[in-house]
C-alpha cells in the first residue's frame, strides 16, 4: 500500500461495500446504458410512427407484425419501461418522504411498469406470431 493514501476506505471495505445503497453505481450506469440503447430506437420509432398517421388497422397491424419491426419494438418497450422505472425512482427518492412512502411508491411504479411493459410486448408478439 502506498504511503500517501488518498482515500479513507480500506481495500476490504471497497471489495465488500457498494455504498449505502448496496448496489454501487449499477442504477446510475443502467440508466445511461438504456438511454444510449434507446437513442437509435427512439429516432426510428418517432419517424416510423409519424409516417403511419391515419393509416388503417390492416397497414399498422402488418407493420407491427413484421419480424424486424417487432423485435425492435419489443426491445424499445423493455428498455423504455426499465429506463422509466429507474428515472421515476430517482424522482420519488428525491421528493417523497418518509422512507416507507418512498419504498411503497417505488414498488407501485415497478409493478405498473412491468405490467404495462408485458401488455405492450404481448400485443406486439400477438401481431408478429
Amino acid at each position, binding site marked *: 500500500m502506498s504511503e500517501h493514501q488518498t482515500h479513507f476506505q480500506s481495500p476490504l471495505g471497497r471489495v465488500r461495500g457498494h455504498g449505502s445503497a448496496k448496489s454501487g453505481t449499477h442504477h446510475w450506469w443502467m440508466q445511461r446504458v438504456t438511454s444510449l440503447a434507446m437513442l437509435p430506437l427512439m429516432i426510428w420509432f*418517432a*419517424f416510423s410512427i409519424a409516417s403511419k398517421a391515419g393509416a388503417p*388497422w390492416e397497414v399498422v397491424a402488418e407493420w407491427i407484425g413484421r419480424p424486424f419491426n417487432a423485435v425492435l419494438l419489443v426491445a424499445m418497450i423493455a428498455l423504455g419501461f426499465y429506463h*422509466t422505472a429507474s428515472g421515476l425512482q430517482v424522482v420519488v427518492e428525491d421528493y417523497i418522504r418518509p422512507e416507507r412512502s418512498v419504498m411503497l411508491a417505488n414498488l407501485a411504479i415497478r409493478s405498473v411498469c412491468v405490467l*404495462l411493459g408485458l401488455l*405492450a410486448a404481448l*400485443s406486439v408478439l400477438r401481431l408478429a406470431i
Partner: protein
Amino acid sequence: MANSHDAREATMIGRRTDGTIIRRPLSPHLQVYDMMQMTSALSIMHRITGTAWSLGLIFLVWWLAAAAAGPDAYASVQWFMGSFIGVIMLFGITAVAWYHTLAGLRHLMWDAGYGYDIPTTYRTGWMVIIGTGVMTVLTWIVAIIAWAS
C-alpha cells in the same frame, strides 16, 4: 425540531458554533438559486419531461394493445388520437420526447467528461432548445404528409 420518521433526516440536523441546533439547507436551495437561469431551468425541464413522457407511455401501450385487439379497438384509438385533445396530447408528447432525448444526449456528453465550461454549457443548452423545436416540427411534417395522403 419536528419528529421525523426518515433516517436521512439525521444528516439534515447540524449545530451552530454556540451549540444551538439548526436544520441544514437543502440543495439546490430554491430561495438562493435563480431557477430561471438557462442551466437550472433546462435541468429541471429534463426531469419534468422525463416524468411527462412516462405518462405518455400509456398511449403507446393503448395503441399497441388496441392494434393487437383488432380493427374495432384500433378505430377507437384512432378516433381519440385524431381528436382535438388527442392531437394536442400527441404534439405535447412529441415535444417532450425530443427534449428529453436531446437533453439526455447532453447529459451523456457530460458523463463522458466533455462540455463543462460555461460558454459550451450555454451553447449546448440552446442546441437542445432549438433541436427540440426542429425535431418536433420535422416529426409532425412527416405525420401531416402521411395523414393527408
